Protein backbone atom coordinates (compact mmCIF):
# COMPACT_ATOMS: atom_id res chain seq x y z
CA UNK A 1 0.00 0.00 0.00
CA UNK A 2 2.74 2.40 0.98
CA UNK A 3 4.64 1.66 -2.23
CA UNK A 4 1.47 2.14 -4.25
CA UNK A 5 0.64 5.49 -2.60
CA UNK A 6 4.18 6.81 -3.05
CA UNK A 7 3.90 6.03 -6.76
CA UNK A 8 0.41 7.46 -6.95
CA UNK A 9 1.54 10.79 -5.45
CA UNK A 10 4.41 11.01 -7.91
CA UNK A 11 2.08 10.07 -10.75
CA UNK A 12 -0.43 12.77 -9.86
CA UNK A 13 2.35 15.38 -9.74
CA UNK A 14 3.69 14.39 -13.14
CA UNK A 15 0.15 14.16 -14.43
CA UNK A 16 -0.67 17.65 -13.17
CA UNK A 17 2.28 19.04 -15.13
CA UNK A 18 1.32 17.10 -18.28
CA UNK A 19 -2.22 18.38 -17.80
CA UNK A 20 -1.07 22.00 -17.60
CA UNK A 21 1.09 21.68 -20.71
CA UNK A 22 -1.64 19.79 -22.57
CA UNK A 23 -4.05 22.60 -21.70
CA UNK A 24 -1.54 25.05 -23.15
CA UNK A 25 -1.30 22.99 -26.35
CA UNK A 26 -5.08 22.83 -26.64
CA UNK A 27 -5.35 26.61 -26.29
CA UNK A 28 -2.96 27.15 -29.19
CA UNK A 29 -4.64 24.44 -31.23
CA UNK A 30 -8.02 26.06 -30.78
CA UNK A 31 -6.64 29.47 -31.71
CA UNK A 32 -4.45 28.58 -34.67
CA UNK A 33 -5.17 24.96 -35.58
CA UNK A 34 -1.62 23.78 -35.01
CA UNK A 35 0.27 21.92 -32.32
CA UNK A 36 2.83 24.32 -30.91
CA UNK A 37 6.02 22.24 -31.17
CA UNK A 38 7.88 25.06 -29.44
CA UNK A 39 5.60 24.91 -26.37
CA UNK A 40 8.09 22.87 -24.34
CA UNK A 41 11.08 25.00 -25.33
CA UNK A 42 9.22 28.20 -24.48
CA UNK A 43 8.66 26.69 -21.03
CA UNK A 44 12.32 25.68 -20.80
CA UNK A 45 13.49 29.18 -21.72
CA UNK A 46 11.35 30.79 -19.04
CA UNK A 47 12.35 28.13 -16.49
CA UNK A 48 16.00 28.94 -17.14
CA UNK A 49 15.13 32.60 -16.74
CA UNK A 50 13.55 31.85 -13.36
CA UNK A 51 16.50 29.70 -12.33
CA UNK A 52 18.93 32.44 -13.36
CA UNK A 53 17.11 34.84 -11.07
CA UNK A 54 17.17 32.40 -8.15
CA UNK A 55 20.96 32.32 -8.41
CA UNK A 56 20.80 36.10 -7.82
CA UNK A 57 18.84 35.38 -4.61
CA UNK A 58 15.50 36.53 -5.94
CA UNK A 59 12.63 34.81 -4.04
CA UNK A 60 11.24 31.85 -5.98
CA UNK A 61 7.67 33.22 -5.96
CA UNK A 62 8.91 36.34 -7.72
CA UNK A 63 10.86 34.20 -10.21
CA UNK A 64 7.66 32.29 -10.97
CA UNK A 65 5.85 35.54 -11.70
CA UNK A 66 8.67 36.82 -13.90
CA UNK A 67 8.68 33.51 -15.80
CA UNK A 68 4.93 33.67 -16.34
CA UNK A 69 5.06 37.25 -17.60
CA UNK A 70 8.07 36.52 -19.82
CA UNK A 71 6.24 33.42 -21.11
CA UNK A 72 3.18 35.50 -21.93
CA UNK A 73 5.30 37.99 -23.88
CA UNK A 74 7.20 35.21 -25.67
CA UNK A 75 3.96 33.48 -26.71
CA UNK A 76 2.19 36.66 -27.80
CA UNK A 77 5.17 37.95 -29.80
CA UNK A 78 5.70 34.55 -31.45
CA UNK A 79 2.09 34.57 -32.61
CA UNK A 80 2.22 38.11 -33.95
CA UNK A 81 5.66 38.02 -35.56
CA UNK A 82 6.19 34.39 -36.61
CA UNK A 83 2.90 32.54 -36.82
CA UNK A 84 0.41 35.06 -38.18
CA UNK A 85 2.31 36.03 -41.34
CA UNK A 86 3.04 32.36 -42.09
CA UNK A 87 -0.24 30.63 -41.27
CA UNK A 88 -1.95 32.28 -44.26
CA UNK A 89 0.40 30.29 -46.50
CA UNK A 90 -0.08 26.83 -45.08
CA UNK A 91 -0.36 24.79 -41.92
CA UNK A 92 2.75 22.83 -42.81
CA UNK A 93 4.81 26.02 -43.11
CA UNK A 94 3.58 27.04 -39.66
CA UNK A 95 4.68 23.72 -38.19
CA UNK A 96 8.13 24.09 -39.74
CA UNK A 97 8.46 27.61 -38.35
CA UNK A 98 7.51 26.32 -34.90
CA UNK A 99 10.11 23.57 -35.18
CA UNK A 100 12.59 26.31 -36.06
CA UNK A 101 11.56 28.26 -32.98
CA UNK A 102 12.02 25.06 -30.99
CA UNK A 103 15.69 24.76 -31.95
CA UNK A 104 16.42 28.50 -31.74
CA UNK A 105 15.10 28.65 -28.18
CA UNK A 106 17.01 25.53 -27.20
CA UNK A 107 20.25 26.91 -28.63
CA UNK A 108 19.65 30.24 -26.90
CA UNK A 109 19.25 28.44 -23.58
CA UNK A 110 22.60 26.74 -24.09
CA UNK A 111 24.30 29.99 -25.08
CA UNK A 112 22.97 32.00 -22.16
CA UNK A 113 22.87 29.48 -19.35
CA UNK A 114 25.39 26.82 -20.37
CA UNK A 115 25.06 23.14 -21.15
CA UNK A 116 25.38 21.64 -17.66
CA UNK A 117 22.35 20.50 -15.69
CA UNK A 118 21.13 22.67 -12.84
CA UNK A 119 18.90 22.22 -9.82
CA UNK A 120 15.94 24.52 -9.58
CA UNK A 121 14.94 25.56 -6.06
CA UNK A 122 11.35 24.75 -5.14
CA UNK A 123 8.56 27.15 -4.35
CA UNK A 124 7.58 24.91 -1.45
CA UNK A 125 9.47 23.42 1.52
CA UNK A 126 11.54 20.76 -0.19
CA UNK A 127 13.72 18.87 2.26
CA UNK A 128 13.58 15.15 2.91
CA UNK A 129 11.64 15.91 6.10
CA UNK A 130 8.93 18.13 4.61
CA UNK A 131 6.20 15.57 4.15
CA UNK A 132 3.03 14.36 5.79
CA UNK A 133 2.44 10.66 6.32
CA UNK A 134 -0.54 9.16 4.55
CA UNK A 135 -1.05 5.49 5.49
CA UNK A 136 2.71 5.13 5.88
CA UNK A 137 3.45 6.76 2.52
CA UNK A 138 5.19 10.11 2.25
CA UNK A 139 3.25 12.93 0.73
CA UNK A 140 5.72 15.76 0.22
CA UNK A 141 4.64 19.38 0.50
CA UNK A 142 6.23 19.96 -2.86
CA UNK A 143 3.73 17.54 -4.40
CA UNK A 144 0.77 19.14 -2.66
CA UNK A 145 1.99 22.54 -3.81
CA UNK A 146 2.17 21.42 -7.43
CA UNK A 147 -1.31 19.92 -7.27
CA UNK A 148 -2.86 23.02 -5.75
CA UNK A 149 -1.16 25.47 -8.11
CA UNK A 150 -2.01 23.47 -11.22
CA UNK A 151 -5.59 23.07 -9.97
CA UNK A 152 -5.75 26.84 -9.46
CA UNK A 153 -4.41 27.54 -12.96
CA UNK A 154 -6.82 25.06 -14.55
CA UNK A 155 -9.72 26.44 -12.51
CA UNK A 156 -8.87 29.98 -13.57
CA UNK A 157 -8.73 28.96 -17.22
CA UNK A 158 -12.13 27.33 -17.08
CA UNK A 159 -13.58 30.36 -15.33
CA UNK A 160 -12.07 32.51 -18.07
CA UNK A 161 -13.41 30.35 -20.92
CA UNK A 162 -16.89 29.79 -19.61
CA UNK A 163 -17.62 32.72 -17.35
CA UNK A 164 -16.30 35.85 -19.05
CA UNK A 165 -16.92 37.94 -22.16
CA UNK A 166 -13.28 37.54 -23.09
CA UNK A 167 -13.56 33.74 -22.82
CA UNK A 168 -16.63 33.75 -25.04
CA UNK A 169 -14.73 35.82 -27.59
CA UNK A 170 -11.84 33.35 -27.44
CA UNK A 171 -14.15 30.39 -28.00
CA UNK A 172 -15.96 32.19 -30.80
CA UNK A 173 -12.68 33.03 -32.52
CA UNK A 174 -11.49 29.43 -32.19
CA UNK A 175 -14.75 28.17 -33.66
CA UNK A 176 -15.14 30.51 -36.64
CA UNK A 177 -12.57 33.22 -37.12
CA UNK A 178 -14.37 35.02 -39.94
CA UNK A 179 -17.69 35.22 -38.13
CA UNK A 180 -15.86 36.42 -35.04
CA UNK A 181 -14.35 39.27 -37.06
CA UNK A 182 -17.79 40.08 -38.49
CA UNK A 183 -19.19 40.33 -34.97
CA UNK A 184 -16.57 42.97 -34.22
CA UNK A 185 -14.18 40.81 -32.18
CA UNK A 186 -10.57 42.00 -32.47
CA UNK A 187 -9.42 38.62 -33.77
CA UNK A 188 -5.70 39.47 -33.86
CA UNK A 189 -5.76 40.59 -30.25
CA UNK A 190 -7.57 37.38 -29.22
CA UNK A 191 -5.02 35.18 -31.02
CA UNK A 192 -2.07 36.94 -29.36
CA UNK A 193 -3.79 36.62 -26.02
CA UNK A 194 -4.41 32.89 -26.53
CA UNK A 195 -0.77 32.24 -27.38
CA UNK A 196 0.39 34.45 -24.52
CA UNK A 197 -1.75 32.73 -21.90
CA UNK A 198 -0.77 29.35 -23.26
CA UNK A 199 2.96 30.11 -22.95
CA UNK A 200 2.41 31.58 -19.47
CA UNK A 201 0.79 28.31 -18.37
CA UNK A 202 3.78 26.45 -19.83
CA UNK A 203 6.14 28.74 -17.91
CA UNK A 204 4.35 28.01 -14.63
CA UNK A 205 4.42 24.28 -15.38
CA UNK A 206 8.17 24.44 -16.02
CA UNK A 207 8.95 26.26 -12.76
CA UNK A 208 6.77 23.79 -10.83
CA UNK A 209 8.02 20.62 -12.49
CA UNK A 210 11.75 21.18 -12.52
CA UNK A 211 12.34 21.22 -8.73
CA UNK A 212 10.63 17.81 -8.33
CA UNK A 213 13.85 16.16 -9.51
CA UNK A 214 17.35 17.39 -8.57
CA UNK A 215 19.67 18.31 -11.46
CA UNK A 216 16.82 18.14 -13.95
CA UNK A 217 17.11 21.61 -15.49
CA UNK A 218 18.94 20.85 -18.73
CA UNK A 219 18.62 21.40 -22.46
CA UNK A 220 16.81 18.08 -22.94
CA UNK A 221 14.37 18.47 -20.08
CA UNK A 222 11.25 19.65 -21.84
CA UNK A 223 11.20 17.48 -24.94
CA UNK A 224 9.85 14.37 -23.20
CA UNK A 225 7.33 16.61 -21.45
CA UNK A 226 6.14 17.92 -24.80
CA UNK A 227 5.66 14.34 -25.99
CA UNK A 228 3.60 13.48 -22.94
CA UNK A 229 1.59 16.67 -23.16
CA UNK A 230 0.91 16.08 -26.87
CA UNK A 231 -0.21 12.54 -26.09
CA UNK A 232 -2.51 13.88 -23.39
CA UNK A 233 -3.91 16.58 -25.66
CA UNK A 234 -4.57 14.03 -28.40
CA UNK A 235 -5.98 11.54 -25.94
CA UNK A 236 -8.36 14.04 -24.41
CA UNK A 237 -9.33 15.56 -27.75
CA UNK A 238 -7.32 18.42 -29.21
CA UNK A 239 -10.16 20.90 -28.91
CA UNK A 240 -11.22 19.91 -25.41
CA UNK A 241 -9.49 21.67 -22.48
CA UNK A 242 -11.25 19.43 -19.95
CA UNK A 243 -10.26 16.30 -21.84
CA UNK A 244 -6.63 17.43 -22.02
CA UNK A 245 -6.46 17.98 -18.26
CA UNK A 246 -8.05 14.63 -17.43
CA UNK A 247 -5.89 12.77 -19.97
CA UNK A 248 -2.76 14.49 -18.64
CA UNK A 249 -3.49 13.26 -15.13
CA UNK A 250 -4.28 9.72 -16.31
CA UNK A 251 -1.15 9.58 -18.42
CA UNK A 252 1.03 10.77 -15.54
CA UNK A 253 -0.36 8.13 -13.22
CA UNK A 254 -0.22 5.37 -15.85
CA UNK A 255 3.39 6.19 -16.68
CA UNK A 256 4.57 5.95 -13.07
CA UNK A 257 2.49 2.85 -12.30
CA UNK A 258 3.58 0.95 -15.40
CA UNK A 259 7.25 1.61 -14.82
CA UNK A 260 6.85 0.64 -11.16
CA UNK A 261 4.87 -2.56 -11.63
CA UNK A 262 5.99 -3.76 -15.05
CA UNK A 263 9.72 -4.47 -14.77
CA UNK A 264 10.13 -4.76 -18.53
CA UNK A 265 9.27 -1.09 -18.89
CA UNK A 266 11.28 0.18 -15.94
CA UNK A 267 12.78 3.62 -16.21
CA UNK A 268 13.93 3.36 -19.81
CA UNK A 269 10.80 2.70 -21.81
CA UNK A 270 8.65 5.31 -20.08
CA UNK A 271 8.46 7.63 -23.05
CA UNK A 272 7.41 4.75 -25.26
CA UNK A 273 4.18 4.67 -23.26
CA UNK A 274 3.32 8.11 -24.55
CA UNK A 275 4.02 7.09 -28.11
CA UNK A 276 1.92 3.96 -27.77
CA UNK A 277 -0.88 6.10 -26.37
CA UNK A 278 -0.61 8.54 -29.32
CA UNK A 279 -0.70 5.79 -31.93
CA UNK A 280 -3.53 3.95 -30.21
CA UNK A 281 -5.66 7.10 -29.98
CA UNK A 282 -5.04 8.06 -33.59
CA UNK A 283 -6.04 4.58 -34.72
CA UNK A 284 -9.02 3.92 -32.50
CA UNK A 285 -10.54 7.28 -31.71
CA UNK A 286 -9.00 10.11 -33.75
CA UNK A 287 -11.11 12.80 -32.14
CA UNK A 288 -9.88 11.77 -28.66
CA UNK A 289 -11.92 10.97 -25.57
CA UNK A 290 -13.75 14.28 -25.35
CA UNK A 291 -12.97 15.98 -28.63
CA UNK A 292 -15.80 16.80 -30.96
CA UNK A 293 -16.02 14.89 -34.17
CA UNK A 294 -17.24 17.47 -36.64
CA UNK A 295 -20.95 16.81 -36.80
CA UNK A 296 -22.69 19.65 -38.55
CA UNK A 297 -25.84 20.03 -40.50
CA UNK A 298 -25.74 22.42 -43.37
Amino acid at each position, binding site marked *: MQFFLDRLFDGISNGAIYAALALALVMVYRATGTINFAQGEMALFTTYLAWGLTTKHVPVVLCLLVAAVAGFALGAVSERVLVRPIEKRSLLATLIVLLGLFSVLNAADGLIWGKGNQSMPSLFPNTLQSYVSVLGARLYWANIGVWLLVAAVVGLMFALFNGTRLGLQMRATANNRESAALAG*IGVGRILMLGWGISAAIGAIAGVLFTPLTPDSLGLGEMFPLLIYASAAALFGGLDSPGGAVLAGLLLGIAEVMLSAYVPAIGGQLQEAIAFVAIVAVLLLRPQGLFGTREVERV
Partner: protein
Amino acid sequence: MSLLEVTGLQAGYGQAEVLHGISLNVDPGEVVVILGANGAGKTTTLRAISGLIGRRGTVAIAGAALPPGDPAAVVTAGLSLVPQGRGTFTKLTVHENLLVGATRRRDKAGIAQDIDRWYDVFPALRSRTGQAAGSLSGGEQQMLAVARALMSRPTLLLCDEPSLGLAPLVVRSVFDVLRQINSDDGTAMLIVEQNAELALDLASRVYLLEVGEVVSSGAAQDLRHSDAVRRAYLGY
Protein backbone atom coordinates in the same frame (compact mmCIF):
# COMPACT_ATOMS: atom_id res chain seq x y z
CA MET B 1 -27.10 62.10 -47.33
CA SER B 2 -26.75 58.43 -48.15
CA LEU B 3 -26.31 55.98 -45.30
CA LEU B 4 -23.80 53.95 -47.28
CA GLU B 5 -21.76 55.50 -50.07
CA VAL B 6 -19.39 53.24 -52.00
CA THR B 7 -17.19 54.84 -54.65
CA GLY B 8 -14.78 53.17 -57.07
CA LEU B 9 -14.60 49.93 -55.09
CA GLN B 10 -11.84 47.62 -56.30
CA ALA B 11 -11.11 44.31 -54.61
CA GLY B 12 -10.09 40.75 -55.32
CA TYR B 13 -8.18 37.72 -54.14
CA GLY B 14 -4.42 37.62 -54.57
CA GLN B 15 -3.56 38.75 -58.09
CA ALA B 16 -7.09 38.35 -59.38
CA GLU B 17 -9.10 41.54 -59.31
CA VAL B 18 -12.79 40.73 -59.05
CA LEU B 19 -14.32 44.19 -58.66
CA HIS B 20 -13.24 46.83 -61.16
CA GLY B 21 -14.54 49.99 -59.55
CA ILE B 22 -18.05 49.66 -58.19
CA SER B 23 -20.08 52.61 -56.98
CA LEU B 24 -23.36 52.29 -55.14
CA ASN B 25 -25.30 53.87 -52.35
CA VAL B 26 -28.02 52.98 -49.85
CA ASP B 27 -30.26 55.56 -48.23
CA PRO B 28 -31.43 55.35 -44.61
CA GLY B 29 -34.20 52.77 -44.25
CA GLU B 30 -33.92 51.70 -47.88
CA VAL B 31 -33.78 48.10 -49.14
CA VAL B 32 -31.42 47.64 -52.07
CA VAL B 33 -30.69 44.41 -53.87
CA ILE B 34 -27.67 43.43 -55.93
CA LEU B 35 -28.42 41.00 -58.74
CA GLY B 36 -25.86 39.24 -60.87
CA ALA B 37 -24.80 35.88 -62.25
CA ASN B 38 -22.36 33.58 -60.48
CA GLY B 39 -18.91 35.16 -60.43
CA ALA B 40 -20.21 38.69 -61.01
CA GLY B 41 -18.64 39.80 -57.72
CA LYS B 42 -21.72 40.10 -55.48
CA THR B 43 -20.22 38.31 -52.49
CA THR B 44 -16.87 40.03 -52.98
CA THR B 45 -18.64 43.40 -52.86
CA LEU B 46 -20.16 42.61 -49.47
CA ARG B 47 -16.90 41.16 -48.13
CA ALA B 48 -14.97 44.24 -49.20
CA ILE B 49 -17.52 46.62 -47.69
CA SER B 50 -17.51 44.73 -44.38
CA GLY B 51 -13.72 44.75 -44.17
CA LEU B 52 -13.12 41.00 -44.46
CA ILE B 53 -10.86 41.54 -47.48
CA GLY B 54 -8.75 44.51 -48.51
CA ARG B 55 -9.97 47.02 -51.06
CA ARG B 56 -9.30 50.25 -52.91
CA GLY B 57 -11.89 52.98 -53.28
CA THR B 58 -13.92 54.53 -50.51
CA VAL B 59 -16.65 53.15 -48.29
CA ALA B 60 -18.38 55.80 -46.20
CA ILE B 61 -21.13 55.42 -43.65
CA ALA B 62 -23.18 58.54 -42.96
CA GLY B 63 -20.40 60.55 -44.55
CA ALA B 64 -17.55 59.07 -42.50
CA ALA B 65 -15.01 57.04 -44.49
CA LEU B 66 -14.17 53.57 -43.13
CA PRO B 67 -10.62 52.19 -42.99
CA PRO B 68 -10.12 49.16 -45.28
CA GLY B 69 -9.70 45.67 -43.81
CA ASP B 70 -11.06 46.47 -40.35
CA PRO B 71 -14.29 44.52 -39.71
CA ALA B 72 -14.57 45.74 -36.11
CA ALA B 73 -14.66 49.38 -37.23
CA VAL B 74 -17.39 48.50 -39.73
CA VAL B 75 -19.54 46.92 -37.02
CA THR B 76 -19.01 49.92 -34.76
CA ALA B 77 -20.10 52.20 -37.60
CA GLY B 78 -23.44 50.37 -37.73
CA LEU B 79 -23.03 47.76 -40.46
CA SER B 80 -23.60 44.06 -39.97
CA LEU B 81 -23.14 41.22 -42.46
CA VAL B 82 -25.11 37.97 -42.60
CA PRO B 83 -22.44 35.95 -44.42
CA GLN B 84 -23.06 33.41 -47.14
CA GLY B 85 -23.26 29.96 -45.58
CA ARG B 86 -24.51 31.55 -42.34
CA GLY B 87 -21.17 31.58 -40.46
CA THR B 88 -22.66 29.79 -37.46
CA PHE B 89 -20.49 29.33 -34.35
CA THR B 90 -21.25 25.62 -34.44
CA LYS B 91 -19.72 24.74 -31.07
CA LEU B 92 -21.30 27.60 -29.16
CA THR B 93 -24.87 27.44 -27.96
CA VAL B 94 -27.62 29.38 -29.70
CA HIS B 95 -27.64 31.81 -26.79
CA GLU B 96 -23.86 32.29 -26.97
CA ASN B 97 -24.08 32.89 -30.73
CA LEU B 98 -26.42 35.79 -30.03
CA LEU B 99 -24.18 37.12 -27.25
CA VAL B 100 -21.20 37.12 -29.63
CA GLY B 101 -23.31 39.14 -32.05
CA ALA B 102 -23.49 41.83 -29.37
CA THR B 103 -19.70 41.96 -28.89
CA ARG B 104 -19.45 45.72 -29.47
CA ARG B 105 -22.25 46.54 -27.03
CA ARG B 106 -21.98 47.10 -23.29
CA ASP B 107 -25.62 47.50 -22.25
CA LYS B 108 -26.36 44.20 -20.55
CA ALA B 109 -30.06 44.86 -20.07
CA GLY B 110 -30.51 45.93 -23.68
CA ILE B 111 -28.68 42.83 -24.91
CA ALA B 112 -30.94 40.54 -22.87
CA GLN B 113 -33.97 42.42 -24.17
CA ASP B 114 -32.84 42.03 -27.78
CA ILE B 115 -32.17 38.30 -27.35
CA ASP B 116 -35.68 37.94 -26.03
CA ARG B 117 -37.03 39.92 -28.96
CA TRP B 118 -35.35 37.67 -31.55
CA TYR B 119 -36.57 34.61 -29.68
CA ASP B 120 -40.08 36.01 -30.11
CA VAL B 121 -39.48 36.54 -33.82
CA PHE B 122 -37.85 33.11 -34.23
CA PRO B 123 -39.56 30.79 -31.71
CA ALA B 124 -37.57 27.81 -33.03
CA LEU B 125 -34.42 29.42 -31.61
CA ARG B 126 -35.89 29.92 -28.15
CA SER B 127 -36.56 26.21 -27.74
CA ARG B 128 -32.93 25.49 -28.64
CA THR B 129 -31.26 28.22 -26.65
CA GLY B 130 -28.82 25.93 -24.82
CA GLN B 131 -28.13 23.64 -27.76
CA ALA B 132 -24.92 23.66 -29.82
CA ALA B 133 -25.78 25.78 -32.85
CA GLY B 134 -24.14 23.26 -35.21
CA SER B 135 -27.04 20.88 -34.57
CA LEU B 136 -29.63 23.31 -35.93
CA SER B 137 -31.24 22.78 -39.32
CA GLY B 138 -30.20 24.97 -42.24
CA GLY B 139 -33.25 27.17 -41.91
CA GLU B 140 -32.75 27.61 -38.18
CA GLN B 141 -29.09 28.48 -38.73
CA GLN B 142 -30.11 31.12 -41.28
CA MET B 143 -32.51 32.62 -38.76
CA LEU B 144 -29.78 32.51 -36.13
CA ALA B 145 -27.40 34.25 -38.54
CA VAL B 146 -29.89 37.04 -39.14
CA ALA B 147 -30.60 37.39 -35.42
CA ARG B 148 -26.86 37.34 -34.62
CA ALA B 149 -26.18 40.09 -37.13
CA LEU B 150 -29.03 42.17 -35.73
CA MET B 151 -27.67 41.86 -32.17
CA SER B 152 -25.25 44.70 -32.93
CA ARG B 153 -28.27 46.91 -33.69
CA PRO B 154 -27.06 47.86 -37.16
CA THR B 155 -28.47 50.72 -39.18
CA LEU B 156 -27.58 48.76 -42.31
CA LEU B 157 -27.87 44.99 -42.64
CA LEU B 158 -25.89 43.27 -45.40
CA CYS B 159 -27.30 39.87 -46.43
CA ASP B 160 -25.39 37.46 -48.65
CA GLU B 161 -27.75 34.97 -50.33
CA PRO B 162 -30.13 34.44 -47.41
CA SER B 163 -32.12 31.90 -49.45
CA LEU B 164 -29.19 29.63 -50.33
CA GLY B 165 -29.96 25.96 -49.74
CA LEU B 166 -33.26 26.54 -47.98
CA ALA B 167 -36.68 25.10 -48.66
CA PRO B 168 -39.07 27.55 -50.40
CA LEU B 169 -41.32 27.88 -47.34
CA VAL B 170 -38.36 28.68 -45.12
CA VAL B 171 -37.05 31.22 -47.64
CA ARG B 172 -40.46 32.88 -47.60
CA SER B 173 -40.43 33.25 -43.81
CA VAL B 174 -36.85 34.59 -43.78
CA PHE B 175 -37.85 37.29 -46.27
CA ASP B 176 -41.01 38.05 -44.32
CA VAL B 177 -38.91 38.66 -41.23
CA LEU B 178 -36.49 40.91 -43.15
CA ARG B 179 -39.43 42.94 -44.44
CA GLN B 180 -40.84 43.19 -40.91
CA ILE B 181 -37.54 44.37 -39.44
CA ASN B 182 -37.17 46.94 -42.19
CA SER B 183 -40.58 48.44 -41.54
CA ASP B 184 -40.45 48.18 -37.71
CA ASP B 185 -36.92 49.42 -37.08
CA GLY B 186 -36.16 51.26 -40.30
CA THR B 187 -33.06 49.10 -40.71
CA ALA B 188 -31.65 49.65 -44.19
CA MET B 189 -30.64 46.53 -46.14
CA LEU B 190 -28.28 45.66 -48.92
CA ILE B 191 -29.12 42.16 -50.13
CA VAL B 192 -27.35 39.87 -52.56
CA GLU B 193 -29.75 37.27 -53.83
CA GLN B 194 -30.14 34.67 -56.56
CA ASN B 195 -33.86 34.46 -56.02
CA ALA B 196 -34.59 37.62 -57.98
CA GLU B 197 -38.38 37.36 -57.71
CA LEU B 198 -38.33 37.50 -53.91
CA ALA B 199 -35.58 40.08 -53.75
CA LEU B 200 -37.29 42.44 -56.18
CA ASP B 201 -40.43 42.14 -54.11
CA LEU B 202 -38.63 43.37 -51.02
CA ALA B 203 -36.28 45.94 -52.56
CA SER B 204 -36.98 49.42 -53.74
CA ARG B 205 -33.80 49.72 -55.81
CA VAL B 206 -31.58 47.32 -57.74
CA TYR B 207 -28.00 47.22 -58.93
CA LEU B 208 -27.15 44.81 -61.72
CA LEU B 209 -23.61 43.43 -61.55
CA GLU B 210 -21.71 41.84 -64.41
CA VAL B 211 -18.07 40.70 -64.14
CA GLY B 212 -17.19 43.17 -61.44
CA GLU B 213 -18.99 46.22 -62.74
CA VAL B 214 -22.37 47.82 -62.26
CA VAL B 215 -24.04 47.58 -65.67
CA SER B 216 -27.44 48.89 -64.73
CA SER B 217 -29.35 50.27 -61.76
CA GLY B 218 -32.72 51.70 -60.99
CA ALA B 219 -36.03 51.28 -59.20
CA ALA B 220 -37.02 47.65 -58.59
CA GLN B 221 -40.30 48.14 -60.39
CA ASP B 222 -38.59 49.42 -63.54
CA LEU B 223 -35.95 46.73 -63.64
CA ARG B 224 -38.46 43.98 -63.09
CA HIS B 225 -39.97 44.93 -66.40
CA SER B 226 -36.70 45.37 -68.26
CA ASP B 227 -36.09 42.60 -70.75
CA ALA B 228 -32.48 42.03 -69.73
CA VAL B 229 -33.30 41.38 -66.10
CA ARG B 230 -36.33 39.32 -66.90
CA ARG B 231 -34.44 37.02 -69.21
CA ALA B 232 -31.36 36.67 -67.07
CA TYR B 233 -32.75 36.48 -63.56
CA LEU B 234 -36.44 35.79 -63.67
CA GLY B 235 -36.32 33.14 -66.37
CA TYR B 236 -39.31 34.12 -68.47
